[in-house]
C-alpha cells in the first residue's frame, strides 16, 4: 500500500514537472521579442525610404546611396543597400545581430535591396 502511495505521488510529481518544462513561457516570449524587433526594423526601413525617396534610389550612384545608408545607421541600427547585386563595400553585416530585415524594391531601372540589422550593444 505504501509502495503504491509513493509511486502515485512520484508519478504525479513527474507529470507536473514535465508539464512545467513543456509549457515553457520563454519560447513565446522570445518569439514576441523577435517579432517586435522585426517591426522596429521594418519601421526603420520605412523611415529610410521616406527620407531618401524612391527617385533617389532609382537614379543615384551607388556611392551616394551607400552614403545615405551610412548616414541612416547608428549604434543600434545598421543599414546596407544592395543595388543590382552590389552592396556597400564598407558596410558589413554585424556578426550576431539581434534581428535583421530586408526589403526588395523593383524600380524601373534597377533592383534595390535595403537591408537592416539591429545591433547588439
Amino acid at each position: 500500500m505504501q509502495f503504491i502511495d509513493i509511486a502515485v505521488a512520484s508519478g504525479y510529481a513527474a507529470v507536473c514537472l514535465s508539464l512545467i518544462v513543456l509549457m515553457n513561457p520563454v519560447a513565446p516570449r522570445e518569439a514576441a521579442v523577435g517579432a517586435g524587433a522585426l517591426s522596429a526594423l521594418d519601421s526603420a526601413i520605412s523611415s529610410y525610404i521616406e527620407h531618401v525617396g524612391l527617385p533617389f534610389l532609382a537614379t543615384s550612384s551607388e556611392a551616394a546611396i551607400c552614403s545615405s545608408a551610412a548616414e541612416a545607421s547608428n549604434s543600434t541600427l545598421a543599414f546596407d543597400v544592395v543595388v543590382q547585386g552590389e552592396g556597400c563595400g564598407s558596410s558589413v553585416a554585424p556578426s550576431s545581430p539581434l534581428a535583421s530585415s530586408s526589403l526588395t524594391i523593383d524600380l524601373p531601372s534597377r533592383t534595390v535591396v535595403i537591408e537592416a540589422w539591429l545591433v547588439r550593444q
Partner: protein
Amino acid sequence: MARKAVAATLASVVLLTVLVVADATVMSAQDNLASTVQTSQIESRELLLEQSLAGSVSLQVLAQAQGYLSSNPAECDGLPQYAGSISTSGESSGEDSGIAYTANATASESPASSLESPRGDNLTIVAPFAGDVPGALNLQEVLSVKEVGGGGSVSLERSETHTLNLPIKVDFASSLCTSTLGSLAAALSRSPCNATLEQDAFDAVLPALHEDAAALGFTLAAGWGSGGSSCSATYWVTLVEPGVAGATGSFDWTVRGSGTTA
C-alpha cells in the same frame, strides 16, 4: 509518522498543481502576447510593402511617361492633344515574408486646372514627382494595392487617386511656339519672292529667338525654305528642353512647329 507523510504528499500535490496552473497561465499570456506582436509585425510589414509598392508602381508610371516624352516629339499646334494622349500603367505582384501582394496603377493627363502654385500630394515617397506643378505635365494616377498575410488573417487594401508630375515646361513651350512661329512668319512675309531679303530677315530675327528660348530653358533650331508656289516660304522650328530631371534620370524633350507664309 504516516500522517506527516500524507500531509507532505498532499502539500506537494497542491504545490505542484499550483505551479502547473501558474505556468499554464503565464504560457497562455505569453502565447497571446506573441500572437498579438506577430500580427502587429505582419501589419507593419504590410504597411512597409504598401509604401514601397505604391512608390515603385508610381515610378513605373512616371518612367513610361518619361519614355514617351523623350521618344515622341510634340507638335506646337498639338500640345494639348499631346499631353492628353499620354496613358501609362504599372503593376507589381509577388510574395514577401509570407505576404501575397498585387499593386497596379494607371495614369493619364490630370484634368485641366489653373494652378498658380504647386499642389502637394501625400505620395511623398516619389517626391518631387508627387503633386501638381503649374506649367508642367501633370498626371492623375489611380493606384490600387492589395496584400494578404498571416495565412489570410491580416489583409490590407488601398485604392487611391494621386497626382504626379514630370517637370517639362509645357506652358513655356506653348508660348515659345506661338512667339517663335509668329516672328518667323512676320520676318519672312516682309519680302516675298526675294530669297536674299528673306534670308536676311530670317538671320536678323534668329538671335532674338535663341535668346527667348534660352531664357525659358530651351534650345532652338530653326530653318526656312521656299514654299514651292506663289512665292510662299515654309519655316520650321525645333525647341528642345535639355536635361529634364525625370524620375529615372534626365532626358530631353522636343517640340516641333512649322508654318507657311501666304
